[in-house]
């Protein structure tokens, strides 16, 4: 027993302090062509790993991380006259967005940055709840149906994703706008209106329609994987269809629900186009505010600080979510 311990301790010592027999054997093994071949293969494997996986990682480091680090440093500088940048470290930008009202192009927005950030989270939450409420039944249907048109039906859920986002939001202007479909149809039954655009409901409606496939598909995936026998045996043992659903199907589809919810929430919070096309000035979201500050007010440092606060909130949400469901699983759905 004690002898084996000694040998182990010897193994851990650097080669030069090991007994001679070890050194001789190591040398013999290294000279052996098979062992050397294995080592060459291993070195080659390592090199290929670095080259292959490293290519995508290097791309992201160069075109995503480096730019983000760059605006992190930008956020601690300040805007000089005419959109120039004064390279003097300051936390003034963070003070401005976290403590004061926002003044853009002389137009005082009643809300501070934080209120707009809060509004984005609120829209994100409403969109998530609405997509879940509207998306569960179709996801369930697609998962359980035995129709031979199932792949065609699935295709119609995926296809809107291929339509440019700008067209999908613009389409709602034709539905909700002044001469839009709803105004016309309501006009036939004698209800006059000026359209239903430029408010909270229009923004969330657009977001819900655009993001629904992200909820339906993961739910479909999990429901589709549920073994029929689980549900049948629940029913055989006397559960009503509704009870069988609550006790078997619903819990087993939870991974799909959580994957869909986190994706919809994150994508909704970062939306630019829904408020830009369907909302009024009061329905701005954080992406719109960053865009205006950067592109119209030319205050790059302030816009960078706004982006940083948004990213901190985003990563906080992702981290919290990661504790319950791995992000990897979301993308495997």
């Amino acid at each position: 027993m004690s002898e084996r311990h000694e040998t182990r301790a010897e193994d851990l010592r650097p080669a030069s302090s090991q007994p001679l027999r070890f050194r001789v054997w190591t040398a013999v093994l290294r000279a052996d062509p098979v062992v050397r071949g294995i080592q060459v293969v291993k070195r080659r494997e390592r090199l290929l790993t670095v080259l292959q996986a490293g290519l995508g990682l290097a791309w992201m480091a160069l075109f995503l991380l480096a730019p983000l680090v760059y605006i992190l440093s930008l956020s601690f500088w300040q805007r000089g006259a005419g959109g120039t940048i004064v390279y003097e470290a300051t936390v003034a930008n963070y003070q401005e967005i976290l403590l004061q009202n926002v003044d853009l192009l002389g137009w005082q927005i009643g809300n501070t940055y934080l209120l707009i950030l809060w509004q984005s989270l609120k829209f994100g939450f409403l969109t998530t709840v609405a997509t879940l409420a509207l998306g569960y039944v179709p996801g369930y249907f697609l998962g359980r149906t035995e129709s031979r048109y199932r792949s065609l039906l699935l295709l119609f859920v995926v296809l809107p994703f291929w339509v440019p986002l700008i067209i999908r939001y613009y389409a709602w202007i034709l539905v909700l706008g002044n001469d839009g479909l709803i105004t016309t149809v309501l006009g036939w039954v004698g209800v006059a209106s000026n359209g239903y655009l430029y408010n909270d409901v229009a923004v969330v409606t657009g977001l819900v329609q655009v993001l629904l496939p992200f909820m339906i598909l993961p739910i479909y995936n999990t429901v589709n994987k549920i073994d029929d026998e689980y549900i049948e045996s629940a029913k055989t043992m006397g559960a009503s269809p509704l009870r069988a659903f609550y006790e078997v199907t619903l819990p087993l589809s939870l991974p799909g629900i959580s994957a869909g919810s986190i994706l919809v929430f994150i994508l909704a919070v970062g939306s630019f186009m829904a408020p830009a096309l369907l909302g009024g000035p009061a329905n701005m979201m954080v992406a719109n505010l960053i865009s205006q500050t950067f592109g119209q007010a030319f205050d790059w440092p302030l816009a960078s600080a706004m982006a940083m606060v948004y990213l901190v909130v985003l990563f906080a949400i992702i981290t919290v979510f990661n504790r319950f469901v791995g992000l990897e699983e979301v993308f495997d759905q």
Partner: protein
Amino acid sequence: MSTRLSDDARWNAIRGATGLLYLFLLLPLFIVVLISFNPTQYAAFPPEGLSLTWYQKFFASERLLDALVSSFVVAAGSALVAGAVGLISAIGFVRRDFQYKSVLSSLLFLPMLISPVVIGVALTAFLTDVGMQKNYLFLILGHSTLVLPYVFVTVRAQLFGFDRSIEEAALTLGANELETFVEVTLPSIMPGLAAGMLLAFVISFGEFTATQFWVQPDTVTAPIEIYTMVRTSLTPEINAMATVLMIITVVIPLLLDVALGKNLILKSA
């Protein structure tokens, strides 16, 4: 109450609700196509006639056609770049083991999660600071970053289901590694790669939010023109242009898909 419903009735209710949802998903797009044939300046339900007026106006506009060409150049370039980078890194991530693999792979998904406004702003500030001009190369680099996750995820899914013994068979039969890759590996993961690249093309073609920070007057893309028209004049030319865009990003890929019988579009989901 629900226990009194028969199974059939319950299932019909579910089917009905699903049908309504499809209406909600697809009706607005159908209306864009429908109104594009309406001859009048203002939208009308039902359309006051069928005419190609707005298509003629669209195809007569050099500015809008230029935008379409720009979109095509950028989308094709990004699909190729993201296709190559996505394919190689997916192979690295699926076939090799290394530390922090799952954390590192989420780095490749990041562009899907961060608001495109932030990516647009950050890349603009960074690349202009290192002295780069806003040209097609700028757009292709930016778009490739945005669409890389889609290629990565579809190729990765295809590689998970790949049987490596056919590679070993090829090697045993005397093919070298390059031959094995080109003649055995690549053909069998082609559906995933093609689906990912097609999706990359389509997303790049329609990308607006980050692109608005990256264009110059001579590289304006189709979605940028649509946004400008929506914000300024709301002319019916938008409907014609939108329909043409949908033909490029949906109808043509769909026809290709049916013709090749590969189900690429479903694979991209």
